[in-house]
């Protein structure tokens, strides 16, 4: 009797998700968080000079990237996209290796800063630092698929402060003109380093901008992975149908300071910082899964233990990898043999 099954209250089945799927989503969130926390530890231990964190964004990232088809769709992420990168196929070891800047790190061979993910083999565009540039790359990927007539959907993410870069406007408008298959995800955590939403975004809503480009903008609770999944799935279907882009504004929290170089207590109300924990998407989803009868304390503990082992191994393996060799530092400015 469906109405007595607490799991049905979760609503995931209507979205075409199995019980396994939602547990797997939860697992991805946990894994992303665990990698993230580990990197802060490594930073404090002096192993990594700098870290920039995705804590608080995991539900939005896992939810919005979940409908994307691995090795077919493409992603142009940003520096907080640990959970997105993991959902798209990068491993915990890949992420930690990148942060240790090892010579065979898949993102950049140790050339880029922490937080700059990328993997051609996973269709993940390499992150660069100037905020917002990736939005145009996602639009270009979508344009490429449209020119060729391929079934491909591109997704890209960025912060609400970044939404004020001119390039984002140019990209969204063009995607609107040609109804390109691209999904724009704004992870709105209310802060761009020290500048709050009210001083960043005229009108306070990033989603509201989509209408001006002729496509839908939706605001979603970025703490709820299933709500994020629902809007992203609709966006993915829309893109595949040739109906064009969607802008998703996921309201999230930034649980940490902007980066390990920042101290948010200098500009953020202590009460607000105190309250942040209540908006942590991980206990939120964990509780929902328990309420739905999909997760027990034991299963949760087992999952976390498994992840811990994975991270320990990932760190050990990553640390054992060779550092980059200065003798290769001049390479790959241009294709080799080409000039």
């Amino acid at each position, binding site marked *: 009797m469906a109405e007595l099954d607490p799991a049905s209250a979760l609503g995931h089945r209507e979205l075409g998700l199995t019980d396994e799927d939602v547990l797997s989503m939860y697992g991805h969130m946990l894994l992303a968080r665990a990698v993230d926390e580990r990197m802060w530890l490594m930073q404090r231990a002096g192993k990594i000079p700098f870290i920039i964190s995705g804590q608080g964004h995991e539900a939005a990232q896992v939810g919005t990237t979940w409908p994307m088809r691995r090795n077919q769709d493409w992603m142009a992420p940003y520096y907080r996209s640990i959970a997105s990168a993991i959902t798209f196929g990068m491993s915990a070891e890949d992420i930690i290796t990148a942060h240790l800047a090892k010579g065979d790190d898949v993102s950049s061979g140790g050339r880029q800063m922490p937080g700059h993910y*990328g993997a051609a083999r996973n269709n993940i565009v390499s992150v660069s630092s100037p905020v917002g540039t990736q939005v145009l*790359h996602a*639009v270009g990927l979508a344009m490429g698929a449209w*020119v060729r007539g391929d079934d491909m959907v591109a997704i890209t993410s960025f912060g609400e402060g970044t939404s004020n870069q001119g*390039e984002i406007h140019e990209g969204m408008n063009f995607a609107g003109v040609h109804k390109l298959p691209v999904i724009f995800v704004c992870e709105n955590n209310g802060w761009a380093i020290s500048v709050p939403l009210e001083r960043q975004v005229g009108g306070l809503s990033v989603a509201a901008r989509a209408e001006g480009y002729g496509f839908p903008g939706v605001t979603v609770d970025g703490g709820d992975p299933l709500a994020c999944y629902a809007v992203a799935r609709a966006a993915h279907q829309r893109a595949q149908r040739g109906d064009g882009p969607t802008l998703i504004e996921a309201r999230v929290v930034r649980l940490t300071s902007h980066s390990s170089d920042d101290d948010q207590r200098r500009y953020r109300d202590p009460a607000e910082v105190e309250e942040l924990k209540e908006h942590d998407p991980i206990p939120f989803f964990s509780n929902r899964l328990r309420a739905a009868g999909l997760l027990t304390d034991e299963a949760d503990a087992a999952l976390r233990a498994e992840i811990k082992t994975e991270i320990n191994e990932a760190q050990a393996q990553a640390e054992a990898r060779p550092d980059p060799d200065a003798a290769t530092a001049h390479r790959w400015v241009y294709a080799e043999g080409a000039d």
Partner: protein
Amino acid sequence: MAELNILEAIRLAMDEEMERDPDVMLLGEDVGRKGGVFGATEGLWAKYGDKRVLDTPLSEALIAGAAMGAAMYGLRPVAEMQFADFVYPAFNQIVSEISRLRYRSNNSFGLPIVIRMPYGGGVHGALYHSQSNETYFTSTVGLKVVAPGTPADAKGLLKASIRDPDPVMFFEHKKVYRLFRADVPDGDHVVPIGRADVARPGKHLSIFCYGYMRICALEAAEMLAREDGLEAEVVDLRTLRPLDTETLLASVARTGRALVVHEANRFGGFGAEVAATIAEAGFESLDAPVTRLAGPEVPGVPYHHNLEDWFMLNPAKIVEAARSLAAY
């Protein structure tokens, strides 16, 4: 062999490359139905359709950034900036992104992109339709920079640029688009990037130039030969980055005197690099200081023809500089 002007040679190169390779696409403002404001893409929209010859909105950052995305996806975009003067809104995409992707991804991604830009003065275009802004790109590691001065080179270098696995900034001097016709080899005529052309051999001094200045320098060389009995060697650099230092230095070794000529302003212009290279690596060959002749230190070509004439280099100014240098 066909007799073509530079504009026709450029169009032909794009047409042939689009026929050869379905991944080649064009994008830019007014490149479609109108065929470009200079006509460089005329006829291609009708032939290849709306998507492969794509009229973009008036958004240069989009043009460059979307070209980058499409190139990652496997296409070979040839983007047009309507005027070199209007490339700056795309500067972030070109300099932060396009020039660096291969390096920063440790060769995971490469970007076969060409950005074509009509540049240069002497066309009554004033400050914003006359710029020679190649220096911003020649000093950017990760880009290649090409500036042809003949129809054959325009065709051959554009083909090489389209086939190149890395981003190429392709500078087309507006004043020579239709200035003259010359023989252009048919079919697969590819001029390799990175090689200068000794356009006229000589023994008394070397003139280094590119683009429209090639034509001016050749005319100046004629005058010098006729009026002064001076044999100037004219070296058309053709590719500014990577620079063909070998040919440069060999020329200076022969002549002992170097005059570097360009239309862009002098201070910090591309000629500084050419001069510094010669001054350092060719020190022993030099019988006189490496001399630069360049556009004046004003922020753009002023409009009225009195002012524009004052600004522009021409054969007479080159002759004058060459005479002083030869007399040193």
